[in-house]
């Protein structure tokens, strides 16, 4: 996973499989970066993600809440087709902005 900082924006390039096992590890890393940079815009880029179950939804919703606390917003980028199926079940379109999807 790569994390880029660009002014007020934090871009997280997620990759591989996101399940409960991995979500915990990803959460720690992302939250550390959020804590340091306090981004106004958090972009979660799913371009490299090959599998995701509802643990990924928990990961997105958790980060969304975190940013919401201090007025930041969250957007999701490059969501592969099969992930969109899971995201739609969660109604994530209403929470976070979808880009390039």
């Amino acid at each position, binding site marked *: 996973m790569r994390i880029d900082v660009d002014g007020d924006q934090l871009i997280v390039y997620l990759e591989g*499989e996101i399940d409960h096992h991995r979500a915990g590890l990803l*959460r720690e890393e992302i939250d550390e970066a959020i804590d340091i940079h306090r981004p106004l815009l958090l972009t979660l880029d799913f371009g490299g993600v090959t599998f*995701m*179950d*509802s*643990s990924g939804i928990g990961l997105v919703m*958790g980060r969304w809440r975190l940013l919401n606390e201090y007025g930041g917003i969250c957007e999701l980028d490059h969501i592969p087709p*099969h992930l969109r*199926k899971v995201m739609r*079940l969660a109604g994530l379109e209403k929470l976070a902005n979808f880009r390039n999807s």
Partner: protein
Amino acid sequence: MKILNSMRLKVPSKSSNEAFVRVAVAAFAAQLDPTCEEIADIKTAVSEAVTNCIVHGYRDKIGEIYIYARITSDRKLTIRIADKGCGIENIEKAMEPLYTTAPEGERSGLGFTVMESFMDRLKVTSKPGVGTTVTMEKKLSGRDKE
């Protein structure tokens, strides 16, 4: 309906087995020559059920997860995933979208919803203190052979 093949798998409730079990079930289902989307659906549903055994069923201890899968001549894949963990008090409530007893673990309460939408049928049986069994079915489309 003739049973063409079946498999039984038993693993401890370690989170590293989430990936292993979904790949194993997908490899078993490969005999029916499923489409990529069907494989992704099956993997996701299995991942949800196995994660539930680990996160909810056995919570802070390690127990065994029992997986059974079979394919029948009507191209139906049946998957049963069971634990001998804490069980569920109110199954109907547990199956409501967004309902979760583990928000602190960032569970979204969508596990059962995913299983229901990605598979054709979902049946949950559970008894507090005894364990939980999830049975899922999916009929696989006949793919054109090259």
